[in-house]
Structures are given as structure tokens and as C-alpha cells.
């Protein structure tokens, strides 16, 4: 679905990503992990066409992503960015309804309203739906923004650190929602810092280091003692508790 070939991204002459070739497996939940500054968010935003690329190419269903019209791409690809400056005086429902804009240009039908209500319910936002965003906590606002991305119903959903600011209950909610997206036939890529979540929830893991692809594959092959210790330059242990893998740093 999304293929990255020999990608390089540079800011002010400094290469953030170098010679990167990888793909997001269709219909799978892919976790993108790596230390700070590895280029995880840059890779995600380049795939979402928010960051210009220096060289190489990104293909969406075989077509260069830069050749696809912005409005058409928005119907098929949605991206969550944590740094989005949320306009304060909007209700949660207003914000989530923006997710339907690529499909409706501001004139939602009954089916669109249903999708908006489903997004509200799926992220446990029903009790806040009519509250203004500036009356909510950071985590609640973040879920509202995620709701907007879900309401966009893209075939590919890119999520940049969606678990930051969330308590463990809502982090679980977001991962459950990500899995539901996969069950609906979508492809999801998610930047994660919590390696245990990556190990237990993702179908595929891409590990980045110093702007380059370090390793990729099934979580059990990528998230190993040796692989993670090399990735983070620190000793990392992978334990198993009741069939679940837990990543520990010592």
C-alpha cells in the first residue's frame, strides 16, 4: 500500500532520513520504534506528505504520493500529529466532524453523521462531545483529535505518538481502536515509545536509528534482547509474563 524507496529527508542541509527503503504491509498494524531523533515522526509525516522529501520516492498504491491531488489523498490517507495546534473554541463534535470534510466538503449526510458519532463513542468521548476543547484536559483533547482522524476513514491511518499524554486506560482504548481499524481492512502505522505495547499489539515493527532503517519484521524478530540493546545503546531485556512480552530496561 505504501512503499518507501531510497528516501532521504533533510532540514537545513542536515539529513534526518537517509537511504530508507521499507513498506507498510497492507491490512496490518505497523509499529514504528526507535530512540529520540531516529526520524520516526519525520518518516510518518513524509508518508503523509506533510514533510518534503529530498530524494527517493514514496509510492501509494504504486503511484508517487506527490502526484496525487491533496483532496483525493485526504479521502484515502489520514494522519494524526500530536503537534496540531487545536483551536480552543470548538466543540469535540465540531472537531471530529472535520474528519468528514474530504468526503463532504462541509455538507455531511446522515451516513457521515453516523461515522462522526461512532468515532466519538469509540474513543470514549460521548460525555464530552458538546464541550469546548479548551475546557478539556490535554489527553481528552488528544483523543478528540484522534476522533477526527478516525472519522476521515482513510484506507491508511498514520498515527504519530498517539499514546503520549494518555493514561493506561485510554492508551488501551487507542490500541483497541487501532486494531478495529485493521479489522475493517485498513492499514495502520503508529509511532510508539512503549515497546511492550509494540510487542503485544503490532503485527509488524519498523525500527529506526540515526535516520536509517535498523530492522523490520514481526515483533518477535525485531524486539529481541540483542536487537533492542543495539537499537537503544543500552541493555534491554525482553521477558514473558503469562504469554505476553514485556520489555524491561535495567
Amino acid at each position, binding site marked *: 500500500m505504501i512503499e518507501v524507496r531510497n528516501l532521504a529527508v533533510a532540514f537545513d542541509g542536515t539529513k534526518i532520513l537517509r537511504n530508507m527503503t521499507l513498506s507498510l504491509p497492507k491490512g496490518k498494524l505497523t509499529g514504528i520504534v526507535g530512540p529520540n531523533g531516529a526520524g520516526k515522526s519525520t518518516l510518518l*509525516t513524509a508518508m*503523509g506528505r506533510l514533510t518534503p522529501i529530498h530524494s527517493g520516492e514514496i509510492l501509494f498504491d504504486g503511484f508517487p504520493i506527490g502526484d496525487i491531488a491533496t483532496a483525493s489523498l485526504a479521502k484515502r490517507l*489520514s494522519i494524526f500529529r500530536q503537534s496540531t*495546534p487545536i*483551536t480552543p473554541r*470548538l*466543540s469535540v463534535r465540531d472537531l471530529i466532524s472535520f474528519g468528514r*470534510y474530504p468526503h463532504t466538503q462541509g455538507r455531511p449526510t446522515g451516513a457521515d453523521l453516523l461515522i462522526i458519532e461512532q468515532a466519538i463513542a469509540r474513543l470514549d468521548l460521548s460525555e464530552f462531545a458538546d464541550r469546548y476543547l479548551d475546557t478539556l484536559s490535554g489527553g481528552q483533547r488528544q483523543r478528540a483529535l484522534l476522533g477526527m482522524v478516525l472519522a476521515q476513514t482513510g484506507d491508511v491511518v498514520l498515527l504519530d505518538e498517539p499514546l503520549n499524554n494518555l493514561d493506561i486506560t485510554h492508551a488501551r482504548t487507542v490500541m483497541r481502536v487501532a486494531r478495529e481499524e485493521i479489522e475493517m481492512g485498513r492499514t495502520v502505522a503508529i509511532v510508539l515509545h512503549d515497546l511492550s505495547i509494540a510487542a503485544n499489539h503490532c503485527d509488524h515493527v519498523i525500527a529506526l536509528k540515526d535516520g536509517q532503517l535498523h530492522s523490520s519484521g514481526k515483533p518477535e524478530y525485531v524486539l529481541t534482547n540483542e536487537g533492542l540493546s543495539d537499537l537503544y545503546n543500552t541493555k534491554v531485556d525482553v521477558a514473558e509474563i503469562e504469554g505476553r512480552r514485556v520489555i524491561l530496561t535495567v
Partner: protein
Amino acid sequence: MGGHVMDNLSLPSRLAVLATLAVFALLAFMTLESRGNWGFVLPFRGIKALALITFATSVALSTMVFQTLTANRILTPSIMGFDALYILIQTSLVFTIGGVGYASIDPVMKFTVESVFMTAAALALFGMVLRGVHDIGRMVLTGLILGVLFRSITSLINRLIDPSEFSVIQQANFASFNAVNVELTWITFVLTAACFVWLMSIHKRLDIMALGRDAAKGLGVDYERETKKLLAVIALLVSSSTALIGPVYFYGLLIAALSHKLIGTWRHQYLLPASCIIGAGLLIASQTLFERVLSLQTSVAVVIEAIGGITFLLLLFTRKTR
């Protein structure tokens, strides 16, 4: 405050209340202290009211859209130096062609030239920054610095100019709500009305652009192209209002602050008409109060600017910049 009363009303009801108050202000402006023939009074006051409404609408729309693009509640095109540019143009004209020559230029021609020049200068200023990174912050800083430069050059010309012609500059460079040109009023009215209709037709897109570049692009809006179009409209609106009435620095800020306070939401469907109604209603009410009730001719601009300036400081001190 009014905000608490309005809190219990739906958004359309709030608009209706504001519109009703504005209509009362207009009726008072048209009828209070009128002596003599209605056939003369109504058209005379009518064209003045139209000028005030056009001016306020231009200021309101340009400010609201500018604040949407910059995601900042204390920035306005005036604060960015547009009005300083206007004053520089006026002062340069008097300096180069003299006071008599300046007074003899056809007002419509002067407006057309000024509008084209202002729009071109604004697009050059914004475009210069837009060509590089999409950095509104740098654009704002550039605007502020250019504003200082324009004022410095104006100040220099003022020192070089013939003292007898200085009064011509003084007259041209301060907002005047009393003497309006009929032709100019109609031209700017049509321009402003066209801008209002277009902006209302894209109110959803404006809501989305208020989320910032990345979110807007993610939702399928061609952010760079739309930003350029909106900047051109802002330049045109600022040109219209400054050519029609003159420069005002803080009125747009006052309108924007009141609109946010009374409407609450950032949805442009309500915010844009509310800002126009509040701007026009407040200006007409102030003009009625000063001109008809207090019999003062020239104080409106000064008082409105003072209140706007205080609003600016309050917004700064209360940190309600977003």
C-alpha cells in the same frame, strides 16, 4: 457582562440579537436630531451609514481572516504595518506632487491606484516569506519591522515637507468618519460585499485552516494556495477600508475580541457575520452618540482607538493570544 447573557442563547439567536441591536443603532443614526427635509436627510445620512458599514465590515473580515491564518488573537493587519504603508503612500504623494496636486487627484483614481499598490505590496511582503518556509511567525516579524521602517520614512518626509502642506498630510492620515466620497463608498461596498460572500462560501475551509497547515493538508486543503488567496483578499479589504475612511490601528482588534467574547465558537459560519455586525453596529452607535447626542465631530476615531488599544493590552496581559 454581555457574554453571560449570550451564553444561554443558541448561535443563530446570538447573531439575531446582535443584528437587532445594530439595526436600532442604524435607526438612531438615521433619525436622531434630524431637521428639515427627509428627502435630503435620508440619502445624506444613508450614504454615510453605508460608508461606516463598509469600513467596519472590511476591518472585521480582514482581521478575522488574518487571525485565522496566524492562529493568533492579538495580530491584525493594522498592527502588521499595513496602515503605516498607507500613511507613507499619502505622505509621499503630498511630498512629490504638492498639497494642491494631491487635492486635485480624482478620489476614485486615487483609491484604485492605492488599492493596487497596497495589494501588491502586501502580497510581495507575504509572498516573500511564503516562498521560503511556511512560517507565519517570520512573516509577522517582517511585517512589524517594515511597519517601523514605513513610519521612520514618513517621519523623515514630514521633517522635509513644506509646513503649509503638513496640514494636508495630517488630514489625509487620520481616520475621518465625517466626509465620505459617494463613488468610493459604492465601489468599496461592492468589493467588501463580494469578499464577504466568498468568505462565507468557504467558511468550513476556514475552520479547517484554523487548525494549522498540517491538519488542513491532512484534511485535503491545499493550504499554501488557499493562504495566498486569503492574503490577497485581506490586502484588498485593508486597502478598501484605509482608502475609504483612513487608517485605524486597533478597531479590528476590538471587533475580534468582542466577537470571540459574544459568539464563543471559532466556527467562521457565525464568527464572520458576527464580527461584521458588531463592527458596524458599534461604529454607527458611537458615531450617533458623538455626532447626534454629544455634538462632537471628530472624537469617534480617537475614542474607538483608545478602547481598542486597551483591549490589546488586556489580551496581552491575560495571555489570551490564541
